[in-house]
């Protein structure tokens, strides 16, 4: 009798623990290593949104890591995630080249890798399941279209001169946005000239300096394209200080400061890119991969045009 009771009890415990582990196994375990949380508001908001999206989804648990901008640490984190046997790894690359060997290792271990926000170099594409992020070349082209449309509306599309303030040299996002803008502007507005491009290093103060030099150098500037609104607002400050009115400012990655300047009518337009959408898209891509759905390799989320005309359709960015 006693023995039977014990047997029943142990069987029940065993059954319960098996059921328990089965329940845990039902949850998808996804690891993410981010670039540098806290360095700017975009990445901070991304981190917060990603965690919230995981919270909201009962089928997912996540190991959320941050490389702090350090390639070596990111590589170590990828190796950790492989050891922890996560089912998918999301990477926001600190460096598009240096992470490739670690990505290859994850791929060899049978763990699908999803790259988020900024893609890795082409040499690593074969080890990557899917890329989720903004299409920076399209963003650059769209900025060119916004600017050209405005010039046409003003009737200066045959004479306008544009200067460009690009992001940090060597940074993929900077290069792609510049390429998109440089290629598209002559297609839509063939008579507009880009008189000069200089980097603002994603830095508002630096962009203000660059714009001050442009204003001294060129008497006629009709438009300024900046690789993001943070730099665009720096350029706007320079123009305001020099008393040069009527310049059309177009940026990318609409920041709160850019949105406010648009409200005041000082800044014409930008590209709306939400870190919340970016984070959600990354998680969804990872889940879709694990559920075996067919995905395009480049899985872009939409980043629409925003100008003074349609800005009421968008909420003010939180960063």
């Amino acid at each position: 009798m006693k023995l039977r009771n014990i047997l029943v009890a142990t069987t029940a415990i065993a059954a319960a623990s098996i059921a328990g582990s089965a329940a845990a196994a039902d949850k998808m375990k996804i690891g993410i290593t981010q670039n540098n949380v806290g360095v700017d508001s975009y990445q901070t908001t991304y981190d917060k949104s990603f965690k919230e999206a995981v919270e909201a989804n009962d089928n997912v648990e996540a190991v959320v890591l941050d490389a702090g901008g350090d390639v070596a640490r990111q590589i170590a984190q990828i190796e950790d995630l492989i050891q922890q046997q996560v089912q998918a790894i999301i990477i926001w690359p600190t460096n598009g080249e240096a992470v490739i060997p670690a990505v290859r290792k994850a791929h060899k271990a049978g763990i699908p890798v999803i790259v988020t926000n900024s893609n890795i170099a082409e040499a690593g594409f074969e080890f990557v399941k899917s890329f989720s992020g903004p299409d920076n070349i399209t963003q650059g082209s769209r900025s060119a279209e916004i600017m050209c449309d405005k010039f046409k509306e003003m009737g200066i599309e045959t004479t306008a001169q544009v200067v460009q303030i690009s992001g940090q040299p060597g940074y993929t996002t900077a290069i792609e946005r510049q390429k998109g803008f440089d290629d598209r502007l002559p297609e839509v507005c063939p008579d507009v000239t880009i008189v000069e491009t200089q980097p603002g290093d994603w830095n508002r103060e630096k962009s203000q300096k660059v714009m001050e030099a442009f204003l001294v150098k060129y008497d006629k500037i009709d438009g300024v394209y900046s690789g993001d609104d943070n730099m665009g607002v720096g350029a706007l400050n320079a123009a305001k200080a020099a008393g040069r009115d009527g310049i059309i400012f177009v940026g990318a990655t609409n920041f709160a400061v850019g949105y406010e300047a648009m409200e005041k009518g000082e800044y014409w337009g930008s590209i709306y890119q939400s870190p919340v959408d970016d984070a959600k898209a990354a998680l969804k891509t990872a889940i879709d991969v694990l559920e075996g759905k067919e995905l395009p390799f480049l899985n872009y989320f939409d980043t629409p045009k925003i100008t003074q005309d349609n800005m009421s359709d968008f909420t003010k960015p939180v960063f």
Partner: protein
Amino acid sequence: MAGGFTKSDIGGLLAKQGILIAFVIFMIGFTVANERFLAPENIMGVVRSSAILGVMALGVTFVVISGNLDLSVGSMMSFSTIVVLDLHDKIGPELAIPAMFAMTLCLGAFIGFLVGYLKLNSLIVTLGMLSAIHGLTLTYSGGKNMDIANKGETWFAVFGQGSFLGIPVPILIFGLLAALLGMVLGKTPFGRKVYAVGGNGVAATFSGIPRARVVFTCYLLSSLCVATAGLIQASRSMGSQNTVGQGLELEVLAAVILGGASLLGGSGTIFKTIIGVLILGFIQNGLLLVGLQFYAQYVVTWVIIILAVWLDIAAKRGRLLSPIA
């Protein structure tokens, strides 16, 4: 020889002002390349945007002359900027500015205590503080960009964007602070103690100079300058990212060394530091005006700095090459 220069007078002038001569040569070079370079609005613009770097360099000049380094000024400037912007909307500019100065001076006092009284190596201390303060700033702000909400409704803009008698306020602040600190360094007993401590610390101690207190005060002055720079920066752009001062520590140090201060301590002046600051500012601006392809700008900047240092040294020893091969 009344009224005339002897050869040794000219030699003496060259030796003293080699860096000034280098400065004039670069100015002529850039003017030939682009006639707008010497336009008053350009000169004014360059001096105004150099003012932030300049104010920081004034403080670092003291630290370097006392025989130490300060690599924390860049991230300390980010800290001041972020703090004053954040407090501006919370407690108003009247309180935000003194609060920010107090917090920044605390950081300076802490560094001064470690280097002065505990005699820890200044390179290690300030290099560590460079990242520690960066972390502090990020923790404070949560990584978010700080922006003043109602930019049109505050007098706070006066420090960075205002002007008085046609001169931009940042230039005035830079000028006044330079005059004041130049006097402190050149004309007061404290100034002579700074040179003594940096020139020969042991001898200074034996002469009864309180070495620790002098070093401590130098760092305090440096943080005072950083706080002022942060104020100008915050007021100039009315908003900032957390990394606004990143990398400035090296530019500041370059300006101070370019001005002829010795990294080993004991030499340098406020006037020469100002020339160093202006050389850096005009190089950046000049290369932009010339329209040089930007990857090349990094290289050319380095070449110009090396040329300036070489001219300075050559003038001092009276020949281009070293007398000892």
